[in-house]
């Protein structure tokens, strides 16, 4: 059997089938951990709750919305300032956190009046915002407030506002994923189809399951725009409430994170006949193919090929420079969900690293199918890992770096394993060709950090080299390379800018402009029929 039992978890029989090692000859019919089951109390799991899955992961990246949490203040406070989902409207969604601040008397007598007053007062305090999502929390779910009724009432009274109601309390599901599901379905049920978009291109998509972490979604939209494709919405990073209400008019749903957003794509397929295309925005090879697939749907192959050729030529030499130095480095790929499969194989193929372990905090078995299918022989896959298991895995596997969140990263730091923030990124975006190089750069910088070398030295007993007052990364990374390997013509470290996203916001896209002009003309012809 491929199941792996951690020594630290031998005493918890329920954990027995939550980790597997992909041994020789194993496939998905013999090697798959359990997933998406209730968390075992007291394990010190890394999971969040369903509320955070709904509000914090999916709802809050919407950029022109008041994200009002109906509950005590902690739910909103604690999930604020923990993400790097940026937007092109000055990051409204990063700057503000809203709550009804439910108190004891509200718990006793009901909090609907408080909710109504807070909605009205908040719109008044920030009159430039006309859209709102109200999120249920554990407390208000348990007291049974009818948030839908209050929202309807306020919409009628105020007239010019639109409110979305998300009923995904923290306890609603084994993990964050319960909230992903609920907010997806609620959005389709309540808002999709309530607004009509201005169609400006013959080629119209939604880009789904990207939260614009450090600009990921904007990078992908750049490629689409260069082909003349109109992106109606990105679900949900950097999108407006109203854009997302027009999702029903897309010709194609391009799906990135199938964990958090496949539900909405499935519903849009069934209800509106919009096909779902799953793609990979990470890694040169997969991205080449993904862009070509989207292009082919619209007959834009030449335009896609041009982008692919340009981008590969520009960034490949930089990726190769890093790959040469990352070869054989052992990584633990420990994200929340989707990067488990998006990165598992392509990071080995293109950066030469070895993925020795994958885990998912909140994924389902379907996510592990993808992750286990894509990772190499010998990898340890863990569902809902806990603190001691992660430590044991690191001790056994001896990774050179772990890709995880900030707090587990601090655990790793103490045992002298560098970490890279896979949720918020170190210096992303990591999507796109340049982004993939930025990831390679960040991995390289962490693995060859001179500080981590210094961290290993015990000055009370170790000899230390006295001849030089410094050591650069290059001096550490290149010792195992031959002079020829270290100096391959054309290969060099990253040369992009610190911020490679902001400039995209004012970029002009001739293909898209041409489409716009064409559609504008057609619209005018309808208004003024030609004689």
């Amino acid at each position: 059997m491929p199941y792996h039992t951690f020594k630290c978890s031998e005493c918890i029989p329920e954990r027995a089938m939550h980790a597997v090692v992909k041994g020789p000859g194993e496939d998905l019919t013999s090697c798959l951990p359990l997933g998406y089951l209730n968390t075992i109390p007291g394990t010190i799991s890394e999971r969040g709750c369903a509320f955070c899955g709904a509000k914090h992961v999916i709802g809050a990246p919407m950029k022109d919305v008041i994200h009002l949490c109906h509950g005590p203040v902690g739910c909103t406070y604690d999930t604020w300032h923990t993400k790097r989902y940026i937007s092109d409207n000055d990051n409204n969604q990063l700057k503000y956190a809203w709550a009804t601040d439910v108190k004891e008397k509200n718990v006793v007598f009901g909090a609907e009046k408080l909710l109504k007053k807070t909605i009205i007062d908040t719109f008044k305090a920030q009159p430039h915002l006309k859209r709102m999502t109200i999120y249920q929390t554990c407390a208000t779910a348990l007291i049974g407030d009818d948030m839908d009724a209050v929202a309807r009432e306020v919409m009628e009274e105020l007239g010019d506002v639109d409110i979305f109601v998300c009923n995904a309390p923290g306890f609603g599901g084994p993990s964050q994923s319960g909230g992903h599901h609920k907010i997806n379905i609620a959005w389709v049920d309540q808002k999709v189809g309530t607004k009509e978009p201005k169609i400006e291109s013959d080629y119209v998509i939604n880009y789904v399951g990207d939260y614009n972490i450090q600009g990921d979604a904007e990078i992908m939209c750049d490629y689409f725009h260069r082909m003349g494709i109109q992106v109606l919405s990105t679900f949900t990073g950097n999108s407006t409430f109203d854009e997302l209400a027009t999702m029903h008019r897309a010709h194609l749903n391009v799906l990135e994170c199938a964990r958090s957003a496949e539900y909405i794509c499935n519903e849009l397929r069934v209800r509106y006949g919009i096909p779902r295309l799953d793609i990979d925005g990470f890694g040169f090879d997969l991205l080449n193919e993904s862009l070509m697939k989207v292009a082919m749907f619209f007959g834009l192959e030449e335009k896609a090929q041009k982008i692919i050729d340009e981008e590969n030529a520009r960034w490949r030499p930089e990726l190769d420079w890093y790959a040469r130095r990352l070869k054989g480095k052992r990584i633990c790929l420990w994200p929340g969900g989707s990067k488990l499969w998006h990165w598992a194989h392509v990071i080995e193929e293109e950066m030469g690293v070895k993925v020795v372990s994958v885990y998912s905090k909140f994924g389902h078995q379907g996510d592990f199918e993808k992750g286990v299918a894509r990772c190499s022989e010998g990898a340890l896959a863990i569902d809902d890992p806990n603190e001691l298991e992660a430590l044991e895995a690191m001790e056994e596997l001896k990774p050179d770096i772990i890709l995880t969140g900030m707090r587990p990263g601090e655990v790793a730091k103490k045992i002298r394993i560098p970490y890279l923030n896979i949720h918020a990124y170190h210096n992303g975006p990591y999507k796109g060709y340049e982004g993939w190089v930025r990831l390679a750069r960040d991995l390289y910088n962490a693995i060859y950090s001179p500080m981590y070398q210094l961290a290993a030295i015990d000055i009370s007993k170790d000899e230390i080299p006295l001849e030089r007052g410094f050591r650069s990364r290059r001096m550490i990374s290149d010792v195992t390379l031959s002079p020829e390997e270290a100096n391959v013509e054309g290969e060099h470290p990253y040369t992009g800018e610190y911020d490679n996203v902001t400039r995209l916001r004012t970029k002009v896209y001739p293909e898209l402009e041409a489409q716009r002009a064409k559609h504008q003309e057609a619209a005018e012809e309808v208004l003024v029929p030609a004689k």
Partner: protein
Amino acid sequence: MGDTKFCELKPKDRAGVINPIFTCQPAGAQYASIGVKDCTAIVHGGQGCVMFVRLLFGQQFKENFDIASSSLHEDGAVFGATKRVEDAVDVLLMRYPEVKVVPIITTCSTEIIGDDIDGVVTKLNKGLLKQKYAGREVHLIPMHTPSFTGSMITGYDLAVKDFVEHFAKKTEPNGKLNLLTGWVNPGDVTALKHLLAEMQVDATVLFEIENFDSPLMPDKSAVSHGDTTIEDLQGTANAIGTLALNRYEGAQAAQYLKSEFDVPAIIGPTPIGIRNTDIFLKNVSAMTGKPIPRSLVEERGRAVDAIVDLSHMFFADKKVAIYGNPDLVIGLAEFCLDMEMKPVLLLLGDDNPSYKNDPRIKALQENVDYKMEIITNADIMDLESRIKNKEVELDLILGHSKGRWTSIDNGVPMVRVGFPTFDRAGGYRHPVVGYAGAIWLAEQMANTIFTDMEYKRNKEWILNVW
């Protein structure tokens, strides 16, 4: 003078919260819990109530802290989840053999569903702990911290009291002071212990958190955790007296020790700034009979010397807004006044009804001769909207990182102080209390104002000569 209209104390007049200053009660209890050695709390609620609080502590200290959860899910919310607490205790104890102290911290959800955690503790004490863990010292401490009552401040205050109440045991006088620091940083504890060492006073510090700033060791041995032991907590009943530095964070425990064990208690003032540090030392001296040594006179002199260089040239009449933990805010306001500044807006992030009886607030109301507002139940939008509507014109903000955008977007320089400070490096390492804290605060304020002058080209040339 004496006209209260200059300084108004009033609650925020908008319903709800936009950019909260505090989080909820369970977070405060969790913060207290990580200060105790061999202690891992179990938060009885959803996973998020722990995960994000741990992340918050992680951001503050750039370290990891372990706190467990009963991981409430749908079935528990419907049918009650006391069994999940029992399981959590067992699983935790099985896998963490060093754990001796397990606070069980409730949340909004489990208080609403009415889980009887006191009953669970009784049951576990009689059953599981007697049988499976016979011979192992384990303390289960129920802590009722519903999120819809109070704030992280009251949660902390309550947890300190619960710890003391659980452990304090009268035996022999130990000749020590109890020092209840309130919600402070490792740097503050170091500064306070330094002052006591200079006074040759031995103290039980609640909590010993200097190790929150833990090293990265070549043998991988270090982890961040508090060092207050069970014996320390037991001994609090045998102290010569208790100094609770903060009125809102630890005072309940001091009062308990006084009423239960006749341990004399002095509550406050928070030793922020020269004057409040002076009072603190006088209180220590009064309680212990130890004189204030010349070394502290010199240390004080160095701080005064540094501030004299700054106050009337650079600080005089500068308008300051301050938000954060109430004792911190009030202490900073007092210090600002001593440095000739004008704190014009104080924001206290919860609706604690006793603020109006706080003698420090009364003193401000009686003596301030310019318009000052003190807002209770306040949020950071109360600051932002006043700046945007030009109701206040500020030279400086003192507050934690949650208000960073108010500073950035409105071009008001800000010194990061309080919890949480995650957008500046090493904040936790520097004290705000004691003479050392006074120097650090004054110089941070000065340097922040200087940098702002240079960015804005606002008499930046003045520093050509100083």
